[in-house]
């Protein structure tokens, strides 16, 4: 606040002069007087000479378009300064709409658009095998060492390729023992990825041979946290699984790629397969990565790999028949099926913005009409319609850009929350930032929404009749533009219907998936992973360890049953062909594969899997097997498998007796159908285990005691992934949960905006028709009649909007159905629900205006003119 320059001298001079004269009698009183005057002057200073008047509406010949734009811009600012509450309301609506869009886009940007932080990432591809086709079999599978080395010899499309896997090590000798997840890398991995150590060197080819493999490369993170960035680490040793590994290199921080497993690990060691394992073709355990030669596309590489696979089928009929190879760009492999979901969410949030546009358009139109006298005067003074249009559009743009800036800051503030919220649901979520692309997006969104929201009012206002507008006391302006405003509400409601219908379908889909009969009961089950490395626990000790642990876990209070399994349902696992005794061995791998799980007695009870016939395992059993009904049908047809024996491909000599038949379980995911499964029990237990505890109490309350049992046996033994079976299930639904929570939120926003739209239009209409309502009341209409009148007024555009929206939703659903299998967006129940919800919201939004109309002061209303 300050005095205008042209007045400062006279006012301050006057104040000083009078102060001097007053100070004669009392200095204190004079001071009080002086400050009182000064404050009054500052609060309401005299006007500057350039009073607030509209800018030249008729640019003279010399006026450039730019000058008139600047003038419009300044005028817009002054208009908003005069009615800040209006401007604030619109900026807020824009901010929420654009903010939600910017946040969603920054997610899409991080996941789908921004390239991986690797050298020439577009040349990197993942190589998978494609297993023989059978119901529910994965499209992509890991590779066996033998197949991979055939690829390496035959394929010419690649500059380099390498295998990798993961292994949990127990790290000792640096503070307390802890588990370290390492990537085990085949020869040439870093070369293929083009990651170079900052210190030391890469692995040498000869270090990928068992026996020479005790070397380790550290991540920057590990080097900092564990070794305090010591510069002399090269050559020192690290104790992993009680074996000394020599540190040969340290990777720079820039080499860490959090969204891609092998590059996000703390340490790397050579994969170093034994010579025997290198030739295995039918046990698929390794991941692989390759770099395309410059100029080779992944489609070309795929074509070559198809040819290679065909040759390998000829060369290795026993193991390779039916197997193919799949080339997938790395980014696509990581992002996977979240692409579709993200695009869907982006579309939904764009709908919210469109609804916000319609809302703002409505408000702007009301305002433009209330200002139509001003506009008429400008037109009378020679402003063309183009000029009036431009000015109103500039006003809308000023608001939308302000909303965009505010929205972007909202998005920025919420990024941290967003990325933690979606961390387990979307790959690469931790890479979310606001970069130039997001800024550009927000700017574009602001400009487009500004134009969309501003165009209709600007066109409509430019059209109003000069004579009518200038006439003092002409129709109050209230009844003007009602048609346009109703049309905007219809659009708003229709968009809301589409969005809500989508949200309802996605939420229902999620609920349906949660409640799908997966063949097991996930409630009250606690699971945890324990991996006993061979170096510390030879097989005999390992089994003893696990048996003692099972014993002690069973003794915990609140535990109903305990079991041990290599992989719990929904996380996938081993996948083999049974070899039934006394039947010709079938080579038809297309169909004859089952999921194989290694379990202990009590698994059926703990997981709540039904025993159909026969019996469960017992502790006294030798090598025995349970099979699911579909597996029984697959191998034994109509024969009764109970009492017969079968072997597994990797242990052909061991014949396992089938003791019972059990129900089907969805082993891979809730979306894929149940798979034929064989559960194997062998007295000697595998090294990697998941303990599962069925509890009578809240399963998480047993987490501490259960981990305690393991640590009591071996304080240095890491325990991983302590979580309930419900958590396991919800993790597999990450994408669906993400989509449904976001769509739910956006649908709520849409509902809110739609109700604001209906409310504002109705209040406007009621105000404009107050005379008519007054006359009706004077002629004997009761309050109830008037309430009905207003509510009908509100429901008409709502119902029209719902009708349009349902048509649009059905069309959109056609399109969605093709994209998302098993998701029907045109579900009549969902549409009915949405229609009902919107009608109720419209009714609620009409209530206040209706109440106001019924309480209208008759005399005032009739005398208003």
């Amino acid at each position, binding site marked *: 606040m300050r005095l205008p320059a042209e007045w400062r001298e*006279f006012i301050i001079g006057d104040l*000083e002069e009078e102060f001097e004269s007053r100070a004669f009698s009392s200095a204190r009183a004079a001071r009080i007087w002086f400050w009182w005057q000064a404050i009054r002057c500052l609060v309401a200073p005299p006007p500057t000479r350039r009073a607030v008047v509209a800018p030249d509406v008729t640019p003279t010949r010399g006026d450039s378009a730019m000058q008139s734009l600047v003038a419009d811009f300044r005028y817009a600012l002054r208009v908003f300064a005069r009615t800040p509450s209006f401007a604030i309301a619109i900026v807020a609506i824009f901010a929420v709409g654009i903010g939600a869009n910017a946040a969603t886009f920054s997610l899409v940007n991080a996941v789908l658009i921004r390239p991986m932080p690797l050298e020439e990432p577009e040349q990197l591809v993942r190589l998978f095998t494609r297993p023989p086709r059978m119901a529910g079999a994965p499209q992509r599978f890991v590779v066996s060492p033998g197949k991979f080395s055939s690829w390496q010899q035959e394929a010419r499309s690649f500059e380099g390729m390498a295998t990798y896997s993961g292994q949990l090590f127990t790290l000792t000798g640096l503070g307390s023992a802890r588990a370290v997840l390492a990537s085990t890398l085949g020869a040439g991995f870093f070369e293929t990825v083009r990651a170079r150590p900052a210190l030391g060197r890469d692995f040498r080819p000869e270090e990928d041979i068992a026996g020479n493999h005790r070397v380790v490369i550290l991540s920057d993170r590990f080097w900092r946290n564990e070794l305090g960035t010591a510069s002399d680490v090269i050559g020192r040793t690290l104790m992993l699984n009680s074996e000394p590994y020599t540190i040969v290199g340290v990777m720079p921080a820039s080499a860490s790629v959090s969204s891609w497993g092998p590059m996000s690990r703390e340490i790397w060691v050579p994969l170093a397969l034994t010579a025997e394992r290198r030739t295995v073709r039918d046990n698929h355990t390794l991941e692989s990565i390759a770099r395309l030669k410059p100029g080779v596309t992944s489609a070309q590489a795929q074509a070559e790999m198809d040819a290679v696979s065909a040759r390998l089928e000829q060369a290795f009929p026993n193991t390779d028949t039916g197997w193919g190879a799949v080339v997938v760009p790395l980014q696509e492999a990581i992002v996977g099926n979240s692409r579709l979901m993200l695009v869907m969410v982006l579309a939904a949030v764009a709908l919210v913005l469109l609804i916000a546009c319609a809302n703002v358009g409505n408000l702007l139109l009301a305002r433009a009409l209330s200002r139509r006298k001003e506009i008429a005067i400008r037109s009378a003074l020679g402003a063309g319609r183009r000029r009036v249009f431009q000015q109103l559009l500039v006003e809308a743009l000023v608001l939308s850009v302000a909303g965009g800036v505010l929205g972007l800051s909202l998005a920025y503030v919420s990024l941290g929350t967003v990325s933690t919220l979606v961390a387990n649901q979307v790959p690469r979520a931790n890479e979310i930032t606001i970069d130039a692309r997001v800024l550009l997006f927000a700017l574009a969104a602001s400009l487009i929404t500004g134009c969309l929201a501003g165009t209709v009012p600007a066109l409509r206002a430019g059209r109003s009749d000069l004579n009518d507008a200038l006439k003092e006391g002409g129709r109050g302006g209230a009844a003007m533009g009602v048609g346009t405003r109703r049309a905007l509400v219809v659009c708003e409601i229709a968009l809301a219907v589409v969005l809500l219908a989508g949200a309802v379908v996605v939420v229902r889909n999620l609920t349906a998936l949660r409640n799908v009969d997966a063949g097991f009961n996930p409630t009250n089950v606690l699971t945890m992973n324990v991996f006993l490395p061979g170096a510390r626990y030879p097989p005999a000790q390992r089994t003893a360890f696990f048996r003692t642990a099972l014993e002690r876990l069973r003794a915990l209070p609140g535990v109903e049953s305990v079991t041990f399994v290599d992989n719990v349902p929904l996380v996938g696992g081993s996948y083999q062909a049974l070899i039934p005794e006394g039947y010709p061995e079938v080579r038809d791998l297309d169909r004859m594969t089952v999921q194989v799980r290694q379990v202990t007695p009590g698994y059926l009870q703990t997981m709540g899997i039904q025993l159909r016939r026969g019996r469960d395992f017992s502790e006294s059993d030798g090598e025995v097997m349970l099979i699911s009904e579909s597996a029984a049908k697959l191998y034994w047809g109509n024969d009764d498998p109970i009492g017969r024996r079968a072997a597994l491909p990797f242990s052909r000599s061991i014949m396992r007796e089938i003791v019972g038949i059990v129900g089907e379980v969805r082993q891979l995911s809730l979306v894929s159908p149940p798979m034929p499964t064989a559960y194997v029990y062998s007295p000697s237990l595998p090294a990697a285990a998941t303990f599962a505890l069925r509890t009578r109490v809240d399963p998480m309350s047993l987490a501490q005691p259960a981990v305690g049992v393991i640590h009591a046996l071996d304080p240095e033994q890491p325990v991983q992934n302590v979580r309930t079976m419900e958590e396991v299930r919800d993790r597999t639904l990450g994408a669906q949960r993400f989509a449904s929570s976001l769509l739910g939120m956006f649908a709520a926003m849409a509902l809110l905006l739609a109700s604001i739209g209906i409310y504002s239009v109705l209040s406007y209409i009621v105000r404009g028709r107050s005379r008519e309502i007054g006359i009706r009341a004077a002629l004997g209409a009761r309050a109830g009649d008037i309430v009905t009148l207003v509510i009908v007024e509100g429901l008409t555009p709502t119902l029209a909007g719902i009708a349009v929206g349902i048509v649009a939703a059905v069309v959109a659903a056609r399109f969605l159905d093709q994209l998302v299998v098993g998701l029907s967006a045109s579900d009549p129940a969902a549409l009915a629900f949405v229609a009902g919800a919107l009608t109720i919201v419209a009714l609620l939004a009409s209530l206040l205006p209706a109440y106001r109309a019924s309480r209208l002061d008759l005399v005032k209303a009739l005398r208003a003119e």
Partner: protein
Amino acid sequence: MWFKKQASVLGDFEQLVLLGVLRLEPDGASYGAAIRQEIHAKSGRDVSINAVYTTLDRLESKGLLESWIGEPTRARGGRRRKFYRLRPTGLAALRQAYRAFTGMADGLQGRLEAK
């Protein structure tokens, strides 16, 4: 319109300010602070200096007043005064207001001056 030109209708505070200018003009002291004090002393209204200047400015832009700027004085810390003087239109407007007021008040003195 030009053919029906009438003296402006004055607001009551405008009248006070114009009267203040009229009273102080002969002494050559018709500037902001003096007008403010005159209004305070004669009408009892303690207005702020900026209110006076706002009104003076408006009256000048209506063409009822004209202004000039005096010399810097020591009492004002070397700042100048802005003086005002009535233009014929201003005087006419004031006359009209005065006539209207006295005309309407005629015969009511007894009641208006009673306590």
